[in-house]
């Protein structure tokens, strides 16, 4: 980047510029005051910017230059599976027969779209070891809530009003939040020293009020819950259901399935394991799979194949109802479908093998310089602790900021909560060994800097277009929109 660009789009605005040409009306004009009562007609115009098309393009191009994505460089953000987002998938999702179709047009005019959805449902059922899948949920958190509502209705139908959901202390924040939104009380299960679910504690906490146990496997420490069969038995014996948070499914493709492990409900994050882009925060997709006995509770409409025809069916009396508009984030589902077809069974299995190999390799390269609280073999990600560095006055946040100077996106930090000064690293299968080595070398260099010249880390980042931001002030006195007074003042385009 050669120049800094700091304008807000509103500051470029000049009266009577426009970025589009709309056609003139080819029908009779309508005077709003003839049609609508006066108090329902807008009197002050919405102040949208007035800029030319080139100004618009330069503005957003400048903004994109201030942004860092997987296409810019290594993005080892633990738990987020920041793998490569294939370009073919983008092109396919933009085909007019997918992007320019309406959710309510007659079924016989969208058979291709319904076939794609039906096949994706079937493939994800196989990959997760479930009997049936719904594609409706738009994100992992919505999948969790959908799954828990299924659990709720299942218990209710069996005449039980179970109120508790058990969640390990290492779980993603969405797990307890989703449980609350679904109307459950949450109970936290502690982890053992080894980072796994404390089975003895689980036995004490499970009872006939347990609706479900939510579990990520491998867990957020990147460790496989090897007692999963026993855990499943304990929960099932108490009449509870097992919920699989699929955030970490990138480690198990073709190796095992949540179904094999004994789970009853699964969500998969298509924006993690199945390469759909994160989009700067979304859209994603969080399909949910269930075992046979839970099929009747899936959201409607269900997509079914009747002879050689695909249909939408909303006549399911036990269904929890609708959870999302239409049939889910279709454009995302198209991308995931394209990916699954690209890889096939063998390719998906190689994905997990490579992801796990990469994580273990990188972990071992870093363990001599950073505290490794869980030295055992990891799966697709691992968690280090910055505790050694903290004793020298440098915190994990500082290490993260220093990484920015070397052109890396930092790992997930301060998560999971049961690790002091945590650094959660997920390299993914799409990175080369050279990239892993380069990152390891940099992390080792930073560890040395902390011993020799900690200020360089404490003052980081040095090379970014902006320094550390005052986040406390930003939340104490929030400025959440462009203030009216700063609009139209500048003319520095």
């Amino acid at each position, binding site marked *: 980047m050669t120049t800094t660009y700091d304008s807000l789009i509103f500051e470029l605005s000049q009266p009577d510029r426009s970025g589009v040409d709309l056609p003139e009306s080819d029908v009779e004009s309508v005077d709003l005051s003839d049609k609508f009562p006066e108090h329902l007609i807008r009197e002050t115009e919405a102040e949208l910017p007035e800029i030319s098309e080139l100004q618009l393009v330069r503005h957003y191009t400048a903004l994109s230059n201030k942004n860092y994505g997987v296409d810019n460089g290594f993005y080892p953000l633990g738990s987020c599976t920041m793998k490569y987002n294939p370009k073919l998938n983008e092109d396919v999702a933009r085909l007019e027969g997918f992007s*320019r179709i309406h959710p309510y047009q007659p079924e016989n005019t969208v058979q291709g779209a319904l076939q794609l959805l039906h096949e994706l449902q079937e493939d994800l059922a196989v990959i997760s070891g479930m009997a049936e899948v719904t594609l409706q949920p738009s994100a992992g958190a919505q999948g969790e809530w959908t799954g828990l509502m299924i659990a709720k209705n299942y218990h209710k139908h069996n005449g039980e009003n179970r109120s508790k959901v058990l969640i390990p202390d290492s779980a993603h924040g969405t797990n307890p939040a989703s449980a609350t939104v679904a109307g459950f009380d949450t109970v936290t299960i502690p982890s053992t020293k080894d980072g796994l679910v404390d089975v003895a504690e689980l036995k004490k906490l499970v009872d006939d009020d347990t609706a479900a146990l939510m579990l990520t496997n491998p867990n957020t420490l990147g460790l496989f819950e090897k007692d999963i069969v026993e855990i499943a038995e304990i929960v099932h014996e108490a009449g509870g259901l097992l919920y699989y948070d699929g955030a970490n499914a990138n480690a198990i493709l073709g190796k095992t399935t949540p179904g094999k492990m004994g789970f009853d409900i699964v969500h998969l994050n298509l924006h993690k394991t199945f390469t759909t882009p994160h989009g700067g925060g979304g859209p994603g997709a969080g399909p949910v799979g269930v075992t046979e006995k839970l099929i009747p509770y899936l959201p409607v409409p269900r997509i079914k194949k009747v002879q050689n025809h695909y249909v939408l069916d909303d006549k399911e009396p036990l269904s929890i109802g609708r959870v999302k508009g239409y049939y889910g984030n279709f454009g995302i589902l198209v991308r995931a479908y394209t990916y699954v077809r690209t890889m096939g069974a063998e390719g998906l299995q190689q994905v997990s093998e490579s992801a796990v190999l990469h994580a273990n390799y990188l972990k071992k390269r870093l363990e001599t310089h950073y505290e490794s609280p869980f030295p055992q073999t990891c799966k697709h990600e691992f968690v280090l602790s910055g505790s050694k560095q903290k004793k020298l006055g440098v915190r994990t946040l500082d290490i993260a900021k220093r990484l920015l100077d070397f052109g890396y996106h930092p790992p997930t930090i301060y998560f999971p909560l049961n690790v002091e000064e945590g650094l959660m690293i997920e390299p993914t299968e799409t990175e080369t060994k050279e990239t892993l080595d380069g990152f390891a070398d940099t992390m080792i260099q930073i560890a040395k800097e902390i011993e020799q010249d900690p200020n360089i880390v404490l003052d980081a980042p040095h090379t970014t277009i902006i320094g550390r931001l005052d986040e406390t002030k930003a939340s104490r006195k929030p400025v959440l929109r462009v203030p009216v007074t700063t609009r139209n003042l500048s003319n520095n385009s």
Partner: protein
Amino acid sequence: MNSTFRYLTDTKQDQQDMLRYLKKDSIEELFDDLPDEIRLNEALAIPEAISEPILMKKMQRLSGQNTNANNYPFFLGAGTYDHFIPSVVNHIISRSEFYTAYTPYQPEISQGELQAIFEFQTMVCELTGMDVANSSMYDGFTSVAEAAALAVSSTKRSKVLISKAVHPESRSILQTSAAGPGYKVEEIALDQDITDLKELEEKIDPNTAAIIVQYPNFFGSVEDLQEINKIAKEHGALLIVSANPLALALLQSPGKLGADIVVGDMQPLGIPMSFGGPHCGYFAVKKKFMRKIPGRVVGQTEDTKGKRGFTLVLQAREQHIRREKASSNICSNQALNALASAVCMAALGKHGIRKMAQLNIEKADYMAKQLVENGIKVINQAPFFNEFAVELPISAQEVNQKLLEAGFIGGFDLRKEDDRTNQMLIAVTEQRTKEEIDQFVHILGGLQ
């Protein structure tokens, strides 16, 4: 590696080197912690891998089986509309610095996304007349349920009233959502094409957290928010409005008319129909609810040297901090689609968006008049925006079949709504030409 998957990078040599470093003989050893009884012993039963050129052909064929809006004029709306999308929109959102980025948790390398969302929040506030908007929700329908949850928690009341003139999918998602925390949802009947205010007066009580209406409503009609707000405020309830952002270019903003929460979907502004998703919910509130708003919010601040910058703010509301006490469980949102709609709004600008809205009103108005002249009854009594319902001599399904044969995608079949047999909801956007409208009217006029 015996196969060439282009998204995988390890050579045989790479794998050997890494395994040697790990003192392992095979990758399989890295999976030793998986108990035998849960191992898959055979390959996943999914179709075989397909190479890029062949897969592209296959996908083109599959997409070709769908009738799309490039080839057929669509008169179908009901929440998703065929609107003009300027070319710049796709070019901007195709910049991979935007679309391959994660949530902007590292502001120093995410200023582009953060600023774009900050500007998006501003545009949403301008259109809705509200003080604070978030960075997006899944869609307009789920935003309605989130708004109800906010109302229930902040008023500590346990009933919400929703008009039957609100989109049926909003209403059914609200029912699903309410079953979690267990608040009550009651529907308010219609007075022809708008909310029945008399029934609203009867059903509202001191336990009512909010009234939810749509603007324009599901039938295209513009509700009198001023009257509805009066009823809400007399009983201490909040007014939640689900609004079409394009219509707000010309209609009085819900904020000015007293709304406490305004939600909706940005799809009409820059987002393809895409078989119903991904679209982009928006969520805007009056300042007093700022710390209760769900989802991510971007704020302006300064860096250590006093330079203007942007960052995620008020995160203490969110699930990754508050866990079970969070105001919502939302994490991933629809950021890229929020960007698309921001680009579209900026391209249209202050006047363009009004012109686009005006075109919608005029074309719908013209079509309704033509239909009446051709003996088709228009049901709407209240003024409508770009959509209206008609009474047909035969079922809407049969009419749609005839229209399809003539090369049109007809309107939304209303028979599922309160048994409105032989009724159809017709949407007319700026995309429809007079010629298309006249042909469509001709077909409907010829039915008997």
